[in-house]
């Protein structure tokens, strides 16, 4: 039930924020400070999520395991300007390979 609650809240919140952007007069959100924050907020969240889901272990723990290998490979793919899907594939295959050949 808590899962459905989380799904409902996320769906409602994410939809309303999309609609807000299309509906609100541009001047209201086009303030320089708001714009800068809007650029940096996803950067902060995505960076934190990448780190947490790469190194996150059980509750309150950090570990370095095969995922780190896969993500490092994905980072190289990104530097080589690989397309989106290939980057994900490289991370998945790299992680699976690291797990198969050594844990």
């Amino acid at each position: 039930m808590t899962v459905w609650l989380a799904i409902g809240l996320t769906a409602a919140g994410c939809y309303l924020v999309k609609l807000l952007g299309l509906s609100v007069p541009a001047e209201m959100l086009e303030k320089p400070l708001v714009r800068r924050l809007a650029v940096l907020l996803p950067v902060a969240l995505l960076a934190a999520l990448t780190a947490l889901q790469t190194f996150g272990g059980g509750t309150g723990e950090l570990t370095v395991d095969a995922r780190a290998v896969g993500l490092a490979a994905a980072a190289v793919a990104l530097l080589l300007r690989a397309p989106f899907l290939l980057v994900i594939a490289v991370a998945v295959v790299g992680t699976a390979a690291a797990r198969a050949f050594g844990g």
Partner: protein
Amino acid sequence: MPTAPRRGPRAATDPRHPPFATDGAPPAEPARSEARRTAVRDGLGVGVAVGLSGFAFGVTAAGAGLSVLQACALSLLVFTGASQFALVGALAAGGNPFTAAAGAFFLGARNAFYGLRLAGLLRLRGGVRPLAAHWVIDETSAVALAQADPRAARTGFAVTGVTLYVLWNLTTLLGALGAGALGDPRAWGLDAAGPAVFLALLAPMLDGVRERATAMLAVLLAVACVPFLPAGVPVLAAAAAAPLVLLVSGFRARRAGAATAEQEGPEPESPEAGSGSRGEAGR
């Protein structure tokens, strides 16, 4: 970006007609139909590539303990990939539904700013806007904003939206259904798909000093908070990196004077009328 798109001959179309079904009108001139073809090609390319990664989401959701129905509900109703992965990750880590939803929501808040840019370009009528809003995400915005004229932008938005929505939901279903047959998703490395999606979305944003500083600070904050805060909360704490970096860069710019602020400060793509060359110091 054109602020006042021309109203073409198509302005006369039925207002209830979806903006994305622009096929009715004959191509006016070669340049325009060429622009439309480019938009279709861009839209299909992005839509197919990203749409297929819904498979990874389906598997990840199932691995996190969500039912097939719950995974599909997320893709149908939330339809913004990073938020979906974030929510599922937070729930899997044992986060409570409110912090999990908050993290996903803050991540989805960037779509409001895409909508802001798209509103003037797509010129959606009242009845269509609530439907089109659901498709205002990274991919549709990137394709629409990259097109040569407003008509091509509408086409690009529509093609990306429909391709991505159909494929993302289909592959989510397949991934969630197939997760059982795969056995342990970790053995296939599929637990790396979520963070890889975040990294792939993040990489093109790291084009400035301020962006890189924010990313590094966010990682440090998140990692430092993990032992002390319940699951899902470290991500929210890391969001503080954004205002902190703005604050520091504001201070530094003020101390160094307008000349330095000019160099490190303003985003090249935003000619902010009014704040002009004063950049940071203007705040």
